[in-house]
């Protein structure tokens, strides 16, 4: 496990998180609302989303480094975990799995009255949890605060980037078609990537 692998995984999984089916609609609706608003309001909402999400993800990863001793995974366990996660993505296409979103704003007094951008930033949607758990596992293995911050910022930044682009440029008919296709295909893409990573780790 190297720092470069963590950085690459955090960026890739962060971007993938946006395209997961339980995320894409929420963020696209957020973009559409932001696009329809005056420029300063749009910027403020995007900034609130990005900063809140960055603080949440980075904070969780730093706490993980602080509280968790570096685990010894062994030769097979990471592949088993990745393959199990991949299987969940496939199964969830056919069966409803009642996994809740992790809504951290509910832990804050008055959290349900916070602006929508902040609430969205403080939420880890259910279908992005395995992606975050992978980054989490890599961070505690490398046991570095600097890498926790770097990977947290990358994950949160890439997760938010497509939302920001759609909010600034608007969403064309072609963009909507692309998002619809992505929402249907991303679970399979994610599963494929996780199976491939599991196989690679076994080699």
């Amino acid at each position, binding site marked *: 496990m190297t720092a470069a692998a963590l950085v690459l995984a955090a960026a890739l999984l962060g971007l993938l998180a946006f395209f997961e*089916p*339980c995320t894409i609609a929420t963020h696209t609706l957020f973009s559409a609302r932001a696009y329809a608003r005056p420029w300063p309001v749009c910027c403020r909402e995007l900034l609130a989303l990005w900063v809140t999400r960055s603080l949440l993800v980075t904070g969780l990863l730093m706490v993980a480094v602080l509280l968790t001793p570096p685990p010894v995974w062994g030769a097979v366990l990471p592949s088993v975990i990745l393959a199990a996660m991949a299987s969940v993505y496939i199964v969830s296409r056919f069966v409803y799995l009642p996994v809740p979103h992790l809504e951290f704003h509910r832990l804050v007094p008055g959290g349900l009255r916070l602006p929508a951008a902040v609430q969205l930033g403080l939420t880890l949607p259910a279908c992005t949890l395995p992606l975050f758990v992978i980054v989490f596992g890599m961070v505690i293995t490398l046991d570095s605060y600097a890498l926790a911050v770097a990977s947290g910022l990358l994950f949160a930044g890439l997760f938010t980037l497509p939302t920001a682009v759609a909010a600034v440029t608007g969403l064309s008919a072609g963009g909507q078609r692309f998002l619809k296709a992505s*929402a*249907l295909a991303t679970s399979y893409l994610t599963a494929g990537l996780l199976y491939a990573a599991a196989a690679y780790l076994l080699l």
Partner: protein
Amino acid sequence: MKIEVFSSPGCAKCGHAKDVLKKLVGEVGGGRIDWREVNVLDEMDYAVKLGVLSTPAIAVDGKLLFSSLPSEKKLRKLLEQRLREQAT
């Protein structure tokens, strides 16, 4: 009564919401409830206008009443209450 379920492609929870709604409409509707599925990526402007923030969401007679998936019990109670109001 007109019910709209806001969903998105690949959203398993939305499929569950539709199943629950279909069942309740059959049980309590008695032909008085029309419902349709709204794909938010196809009708984004309409979803934004109603204030939909996430999927699944449920609007009744053009008003967003559930911004997330309600329990079956809660949804049943609302439908029965609305039907009673319409009957009087």
